[in-house]
C-alpha cells in the first residue's frame, strides 16, 4: 500500500540515499536496520515528509503522491513515534496528543477542554494506558511516554481514511526488557489498525517482531529478508560489511579483578526519594553493572558518587582513604573519578569545541602553566588519542558536534582516560551506537579494567551487563535487591528480569 521507488537524497557532496526501494503492506511490521550513518534517519525523515527526496517516487495504493511536510504525511496516514522524550514536558498528556490539531476542539473559536480530555482518554484506551489525560507528561515514566506517543499517532485513525503506517524510531532504547515485551505485545495487537515500520539497533528485537527486515548500509538497501529465515549473524555482517567475531562483549578479555584493593565502598548510602541503604564495593579493575528499570535509582547513585548531589545518610569511601570527601564534580575529578553521563549531547560533549578542547576540559591544570594554556601539548594529546581510539574526524580542529555518536563517545572516554581517572562511571555508554562503535566501546572498557581502573556501568541491555560485568547489582525502587557474578556463575537475562520484577 505504501511504496517508495528509487529514492535518492544528497546533502551537498554526500550521497545519503541512493535508489532505495521500500514497501509496506497493510497490517505488516517491517524492520529497518543499519549502522548509524547508514541512512536510516534520512529515509525515515523522507517517509515522514520532513525531507523531500531528490529523485524517486512515492506511491500510496499505487497512486503517486508527494509529502510537502510532516502535516502532509500525517494526512496520508503516516505517523511517527519519536525516539526518547519527544513529548513536551510542560504540556499535559491531552495537549501533547492533540498538539498541532487543537482547532478540532474549537467551540466559538475557543478550546473545549472537556471534549479534548474525553477524546484523549479514548486514544489512551487504544494503547491500554490508564492515566489521567490532564497529567503533565514529565510526571510519566519513559514507558508511559512511549505509549502516549503511540496513542498520539493513533489519532490518525480518526483523521484520515487512509490505512495507517506508523514509524517506530528506536522505541525500545529507553525501555527496560519487561517494558519492551509489553510494547511488542501492544504493537502486535495493533496490526489490525496499522502497519509498522520498526527501526532499531537491537537486531534481536527487530527480528523477533518484524515480518520482513530491510538492511541499509551506506545509503543503499543491501538486503531484504523475511523474519523466519533471518540469521542475525548474516544480517550483522551485512550491516557492518564485515564478520562480527564471536565474543561480542569481549568476555574472553575479561580478567579477574583484584579483591584486595577496593577503590570505592558505599555503606548504607541513602537519598530522599531516589534510593536508600545502598551498600557495595568496587575493586581495582572490577566492572560493576547496575541494572534495573528506569527510575530504579541507578543514575541517582552515580550522580551521588560523582558529587553532583549529596547523599542524606551513609558514607562513601573513595580509594580506601577517609580523607577524600567529594561534594562536587570538581573534587571528584581532582580525585580521579570520571563520569560519562547518559545525555551525551548536553552533558557529555562540547559540540562547539574541537577534540583537543574536549579532552582537556577536565584537566586544564595539566595543560597550562600560570593560567596559560599549552596548546601544542594539547594538540599532541589529541592526536595521540585520535590514533589510539581510531576516532574518525575530518581534522583535529573539527568541532565535536560534527562527529558521529560513536566518535563523540570515544572523545568523552579519551577525556577521562587521559586525565588518569581510577574510578569510571559510564551511564548507557553504548546508547544509540551502531555495532562497530559498540564493540570499540566494549574493548575500551576492557582495556580500562585491565589497566586497573574500576568501572561502574549502567548498561543498555541485559546482554551487555552479562557480557561486560564481573558483578551485577539489580536495583529496584531505589534498593539493591540482588547481586550476580557473571564472571563466576552463568547468568541469563531471565534471571535479571526475575530479580527486577
Amino acid at each position, binding site marked *: 500500500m505504501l511504496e517508495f521507488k528509487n529514492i535518492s537524497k544528497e546533502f551537498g557532496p554526500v550521497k545519503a540515499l541512493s535508489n532505495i526501494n521500500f514497501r509496506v503492506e497493510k497490517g505488516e511490521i517491517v524492520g529497518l536496520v543499519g549502522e548509524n550513518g547508514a541512512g536510516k534517519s534520512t529515509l525515515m525523515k523522507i517517509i515522514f515528509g520532513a525531507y523531500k527526496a531528490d529523485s524517486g517516487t512515492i506511491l500510496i495504493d499505487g497512486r503517486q503522491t508527494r509529502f510537502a511536510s510532516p502535516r502532509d504525511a500525517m494526512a496520508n496516514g503516516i505517523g511517527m513515534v519519536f525516539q526518547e522524550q519527544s513529548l513536551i514536558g510542560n504540556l499535559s498528556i491531552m*495537549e501533547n496528543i492533540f498538539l*498541532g490539531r487543537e*482547532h478540532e476542539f474549537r467551540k466559538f473559536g475557543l478550546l473545549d477542554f472537556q471534549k479534548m480530555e474525553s477524546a484523549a482518554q479514548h486514544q489512551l484506551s487504544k494503547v491500554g494506558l490508564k492515566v489521567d489525560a490532564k497529567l503533565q507528561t514529565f510526571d510519566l515514566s519513559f514507558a508511559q511516554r512511549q505509549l502516549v506517543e503511540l496513542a498520539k499517532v493513533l489519532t490518525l485513525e480518526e483523521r484520515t481514511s487512509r490505512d495507517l503506517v506508523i514509524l517506530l524510531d528506536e522505541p525500545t532504547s529507553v525501555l527496560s526488557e519487561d517494558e519492551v515485551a509489553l510494547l511488542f505485545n501492544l504493537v502486535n495487537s495493533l496490526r489490525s489498525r496499522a502497519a509498522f515500520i520498526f527501526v532499531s539497533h537491537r537486531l534481536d528485537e527487530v527480528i523477533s517482531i518484524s515480518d520482513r527486515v530491510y538492511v541499509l548500509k551506506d545509503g543503499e538497501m543491501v538486503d531484504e529478508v523475511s523474519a523466519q529465515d533471518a540469521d542475525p549473524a548474516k544480517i550483522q555482517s551485512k550491516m557492518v560489511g564485515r564478520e562480527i567475531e564471536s565474543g561480542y562483549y569481549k568476555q574472553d578479555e575479561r580478567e579477574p579483578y583484584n579483591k584486595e584493593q577496593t577503590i570505592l565502598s558505599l555503606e548504607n548510602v541513602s537519598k530522599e526519594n531516589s534510593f536508600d541503604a545502598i551498600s557495595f564495593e568496587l575493586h581495582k579493575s572490577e566492572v560493576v553493572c547496575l541494572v534495573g528499570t528506569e527510575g530504579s535509582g541507578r543514575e541517582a547513585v552515580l550522580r551521588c558518587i560523582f558529587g553532583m548531589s549529596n547523599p542524606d545518610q551513609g558514607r562513601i569511601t573513595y580509594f580506601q582513604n577517609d580523607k577524600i570527601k567529594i561534594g562536587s564534580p570538581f573534587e571528584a575529578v581532582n580525585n580521579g573519578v570520571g563520569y560519562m553521563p547518559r545525555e551525551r549531547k548536553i552533558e557529555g560533549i562540547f559540540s562547539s569545541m574541537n577534540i583537543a578542547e574536549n579532552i582537556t576540559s577536565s584537566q586544564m591544570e595539566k595543560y597550562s602553566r600560570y593560567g596559560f594554556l599549552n596548546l601544542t601539548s594539547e594538540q599532541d594529546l589529541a592526536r595521540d588519542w585520535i590514533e589510539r581510539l581510531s576516532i574518525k574526524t575530518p581534522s583535529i580542529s573539527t568541532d565535536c558536534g560534527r562527529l558521529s555518536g560513536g566518535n563523540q563517545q570515544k572523545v568523552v572516554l579519551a577525556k577521562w582516560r587521559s586525565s588518569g581517572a581510577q574510578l569510571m562511571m559510564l551511564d548507557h555508554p553504548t546508547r544509540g551506537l551502531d555495532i562497530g562503535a559498540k564493540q570499540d566501546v566494549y574493548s575500551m572498557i576492557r582495556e580500562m579494567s585491565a589497566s586497573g581502573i574500576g568501572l561502574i556501568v549502567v548498561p543498555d541491555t541485559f546482554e551487555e551487563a552479562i557480557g561486560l560485568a564481573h558483578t551485577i547489582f539489580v536495583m529496584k525502587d531505589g534498593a539493591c535487591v540482588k547481586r550476580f557474578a557473571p564472571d563466576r556463575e552463568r547468568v541469563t537475562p531471565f534471571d535479571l528480569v526475575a530479580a527486577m520484577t
Partner: protein
Amino acid sequence: MPIIVLAVLVVFFTFLNPNFFSMRNFARIAIAASPFLMVTIGVTFIIIMGSIDLSMEGTVSLTAIVFCFCFLFFGGTLGSGGWVAIPLALLAGAIYGALNGFIHAKLLIPSFMSSLAMGFVGIGAAVLLTGGGIVRIDDDIFRSLLTYRIQGFPLMVYVAILFLIFGIIIQKFTVLGRNLYAIGGAEDLAAASGVPVLRTRILAFSLAGFYYSLAGVLQVAKLGQAESVTGANLMFLSITAAVVGGVALWGAIGGVFNALIGVLIVAVINNGMVVIGLPDYLQDGVLGILVIVAVILSTNRSNIRFVK
C-alpha cells in the same frame, strides 16, 4: 508567590505612608499601569514562546502617532468618525508586529536582534511622521477614557482590564496560545507534531504588536498627545515586569496573569517610592534591588538546572 510579594509591598508602603492605601492612589497606580500592562502582555506572549521582543518602544510610538493622525484626519472627535482611528491604529500595530515576526522567523534572525532593529525602525518612522513635533488630541469624548470615572477608576483602566481578559482567553483557550507554549517548551518536537511554527511565530509577534498599539492608544488617552518618544523606557521595564511576575525568560512558564502581577509590582514600587518621599537619586537603585528580590521570591527554581 508573586502575589505575596505584591501584598508585602503594599503593606510596606502603607505602613510608611497611610495615604498610599487609598482608592484615589490605587486609581493613580492603575492609570500609570494601564498602557504599561498592555505592552507587558504583548511581550509576555513572545517570551512564553522562548523568544524576546525589543521592538515595543518603536511600535508604541509609531502606532500612537498613527492613531493621532488618523483621529485628526477623520474629524478630530470620536463623534465625527474619529473612532475609525482606533481600529486603524490597532491594525497598524498588528501589521508592524507581523512584519517584525516575519523578519525574525522567515529570515532566521534571532528575535533579540531583529526586534531590536525593528524598534529602531519604528522610532525612526515615528520621527519621520511627526518631524519631531507633538500631535495633540483635545477631543473630550475620547479623553473621557481618562477623565470619566466608574467606581473611582477611569474608563481606560476598564479597557485595560478588558484586554487583559482577552489576553488570558487567547493564552488559555485558543490554538495560538497552546502552540506558543508548545514552541516554548520544545520547538523541534512541536514542529514534528505538525505545529505550524513559522505561522505561529509570526502570529505571536503580530499579536504582540496589536497589544503594543493598544498601549499606544491608551498612552494618547492618558497624555492627550503623541510624539516619537511616547514609547520611551518601556522596553526594559516591560520585560522586567514580566519576569518579576513569574514569566520565565527561557519560555513556556508563566502567562498573562503573571504579567499583570509583575506590572502591578513595578507600578506600586514606582508610585510608592515617591509616596514615601524617597530622594529621587535613590529611586533607581532601590527599584533595582527590589526587582532582584522580587524575582528571587517569585521564580520557582525547583526544576531549573541552570539559568543564563
